[in-house]
């Protein structure tokens, strides 16, 4: 997966980038699965490998296929990135070990979901109960986000082509 990511950085063919981001997403989904997040894997598969890639390809078809390789100074981004990374590494030093059942996150809120959701809410899939019931309001927000994106795309690229033509004329 890391290799994919590095490959993505260096490839300049945007098509290859789109393909690789599909692969990246697939491997992320496998990782989710290994970490027991079946629902997330499901979504990532549908979204990352499906919708995002297809949209990205559509964009490529509408724009251009190659990145111009620019040889400007990459020092500043590198410094920022390393600083951020160092901060995170610094943070990992105090993190509970991977998979530790005694970690704080597994003790406070989550316990109730696991123990009671079957009785209080019903569905055997705890993720569904939490998503739809305990944190149903988040999901409402999520739906609104998708709604926003859709009407945003409608507003930006909707069918009426007039504004775009006008702009082209302006440029001419």
């Amino acid at each position: 997966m890391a290799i994919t990511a590095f490959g993505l950085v260096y490839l300049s063919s945007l098509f290859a980038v789109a393909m690789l981001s599909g692969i990246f997403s697939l491997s992320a989904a496998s990782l989710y699965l290994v970490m027991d997040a079946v629902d997330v894997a499901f979504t990532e598969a549908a979204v990352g490998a499906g919708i995002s890639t297809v949209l990205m390809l559509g964009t490529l078809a509408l724009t251009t296929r190659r990145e111009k390789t620019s040889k400007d100074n990459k020092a500043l981004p590198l410094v920022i990135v390393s600083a951020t990374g160092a901060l995170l590494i610094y943070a990992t030093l105090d993190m509970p070990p991977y998979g530790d059942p005694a970690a704080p996150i597994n003790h406070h809120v989550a316990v109730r979901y696991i123990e009671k959701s079957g009785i209080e809410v019903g569905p055997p899939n705890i993720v569904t109960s939490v998503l739809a019931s305990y944190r149903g309001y988040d999901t409402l927000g999520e739906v609104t986000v998708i709604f926003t994106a859709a009407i945003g795309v409608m507003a930006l690229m909707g069918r009426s082509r007039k504004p775009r033509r006008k702009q082209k004329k302006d440029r001419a």
Partner: protein
Amino acid sequence: MFIVATIAILITMAMALARALLGPSVFDRILATNSFGTLTMLLISVYGFLSGRPEFLDIALLYTLINFIGIIAVTKFVNFGNASHSVREDEQGDI
């Protein structure tokens, strides 16, 4: 036994990934991605058995479908991208 299959799948995935990175043409990458998708699907099925909860095959089923749609989309858009920008000197690097 499942472990053996898992490892084989992982190795093959690495090979497909290598092909995707090496190219040389876009189509090689697409081909590799396609194989990668199939392999992921297999990996999920096998992993389900490996972890003792094989109920989640829906995901693998979904992968088969999504992979199919993805590849069809790619092949369509590849051709289109070329048709619209037929005179583009910088396409050579891909092919």
